[in-house]
């Protein structure tokens, strides 16, 4: 069975001109921490007799800086989609043509043509999610589908609010809340966003990444957060709900790419094809608690994630989401100034 499978894989890759070598050896993956399912890795290792090694990073900026500096020894990296144009223009990524791989047909149609990689010549989605708010509804039963929870909070929540200090995301939220366009350098819009941030800050308790423990225990009553994180919180504390800000939000996705300096390109290609298999994609989701973009993975998802309200998009959000983008350098400079002003 195994040999047949291998022969099949080899045959397919030969057919597609992807490469010939039977994959044996190793594979170095550079991914966000606690984001790679160990079962998935084990399955891949056993199937292709490849030793996989995972190394973590904690931010897109660190990952970009390191890969750009070179000499890292990684084959695969998993940067966020909005960073991808930089990775591509800096010449860090191999044009591996995942769109010609066998399992590419499983990819959800709305993910085939993202603005940052039209036609998927470089990347495939790893997992995706939305950005919104988490609220402990035991203490506040009002409307939670709005950024108002963070920027103009009700009395019940004041002083118990957190905002995740991801500069771009926080300013995105403030811009959207004040009716601005994200990545715009328009002074009027920026001023409104800054004023909202400054006015809201006294009501915040903290600006912290680690939301799980304090939310679950009730030290925090509301926070801006990513959907999978809120799913984790709700599974422990059922009072916690995820709010979709109707003013608008973005969809982010982390994407799998092969680095130009990769030494194990064939194994890397096998891995990319491997994770587009529905069952494997579900394993990934089950571990990281975020949705994948692979059709047919639903039957393999764990029970507590099937139909989870956090993972989809409700009807009222139709047309109110954008794919997350990276802003141009001069705009980032303005944002950094505002951010420093807010946090001084």
């Amino acid at each position, binding site marked *: 069975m195994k040999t047949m499978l291998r022969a099949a894989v080899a045959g397919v890759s030969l057919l597609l001109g992807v490469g010939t070598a039977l994959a044996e050896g190793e594979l170095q993956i550079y991914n966000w921490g606690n984001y790679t399912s160990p079962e998935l890795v084990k399955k891949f290792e056993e199937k292709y007799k490849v030793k996989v090694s995972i190394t973590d990073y904690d931010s897109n900026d*660190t990952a970009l800086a390191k890969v750009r500096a070179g000499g890292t020894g990684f084959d695969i990296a998993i940067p966020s989609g909005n960073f991808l144009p930089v990775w591509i223009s800096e010449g860090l990524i191999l044009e591996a043509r995942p769109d010609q791989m066998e399992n590419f047909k499983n990819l959800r149609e709305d993910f085939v043509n993202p603005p940052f990689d039209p036609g998927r010549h470089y990347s495939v989605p790893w997992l995706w999610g939305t950005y919104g708010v988490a609220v402990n509804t035991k203490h506040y039963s009002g409307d939670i589908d709005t950024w108002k929870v963070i920027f103009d909070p009700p009395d019940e929540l004041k002083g118990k609010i957190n905002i995740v200090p991801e500069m771009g995301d926080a300013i995105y939220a403030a811009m959207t809340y004040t009716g601005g366009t994200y990545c715009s350098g328009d002074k009027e819009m920026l001023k409104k966003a800054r004023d909202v941030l400054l006015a809201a800050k006294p009501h915040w308790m903290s600006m912290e990444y680690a939301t799980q423990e304090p939310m679950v225990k009730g030290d925090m009553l509301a926070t801006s957060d990513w959907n999978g994180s809120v799913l984790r919180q709700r599974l422990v504390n059922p009072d916690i709900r995820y709010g979709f800000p109707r003013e608008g939000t973005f969809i982010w996705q982390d994407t799998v790419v092969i680095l130009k300096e990769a030494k194990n390109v064939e194994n890397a290609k096998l891995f990319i094809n491997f994770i587009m298999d529905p069952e494997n994609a579900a394993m990934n989701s089950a571990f990281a608690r975020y949705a994948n973009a692979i059709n047919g993975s639903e039957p393999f998802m764990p029970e507590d994630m099937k139909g989870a309200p956090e993972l989809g998009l409700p009807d009222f959000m139709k047309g109110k989401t954008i794919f997350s983008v990276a802003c141009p350098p001069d705009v980032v400079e303005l944002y950094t100034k505002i951010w420093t002003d807010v946090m001084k």
Partner: protein
Amino acid sequence: MSDATRIAENARRADIRNRWWLTAPALFILFVAAIGPLLVVLLYSFMLKGDFGDVKYGQFSLDGWFSVFFERDIFDDTVGIAEAHVSILWRSVKLSLITTLLTLFIGFPTAYYISIQEPRRRDLLVFMVTIPFWTNILIRTFAMQEVVRNEGVINTLLVWSGIVDRPIQIMYTDWAIFFGMVYVYLPLMVLPLYASMEKIDFRLVEAGYDLYAGRFQVLRRVIIPLVKPGIVAGSILVFIPSLGAYVTPRVLGGGKNLMLGNLIDLQFGQGKNWPLGSALSITLLVIVTVALLFYVRNASKSGGGHGH
């Protein structure tokens, strides 16, 4: 020049040469992995910032340095002093000073207590000071959240003993930062203090008592001057790293206000302005070095009273 002075002079030269050889390995390692790379940072501070981090090589610019001290208001384009940077620097210095003092107040008696034990117990206690630090700082900080939370250990004790009737907010306040920082930096204070206390000449203390000095007077006039090198070393080891600290202020203090460490981190990370980050760090380095040299010079002038 007489023979005697020439011999003495030669001996002195040989001594200095030997002292250079002895320092050479340390200086070499530092040069390769600390000072040399820092020169790169200095160079970077004079370059044009790259679009997505890094710099544009070979394109010189003073923008980084300009932004350290001045800011151009993004709304009305007026140029003023970089007030944000000044207030962040001031807060960091204040916080580090308080941390150093608190650590000294707790660390001094502890180190002293350890140093007067019998040798075996003493070694054990020294080890016990460092054992908690075998666990990583991040996980220790999370455990500390358990201590300072509203339903945490401190609040439970306070409510149970009737001192307060409802939990007080400690987590995400400056109190939590101090608690966390003192915790993190305690061994950096205790160990150098201990190292210099372990050999206190208690005959001097005895002499103090013979002269009818009180316990406090002996402490102030005899013991503290004797262990001054330890106090200096400990204070340096606590003060400087806490200037750049950023995990504890964030996880325990809630990270609402930037510290110097976070500000610099922001420029190298999300802000993607490496020249400004570089210029800020060089500024910090210069401030700290000058302060340190001044401090050490003064300390060695007034300190000692023993062996000199």
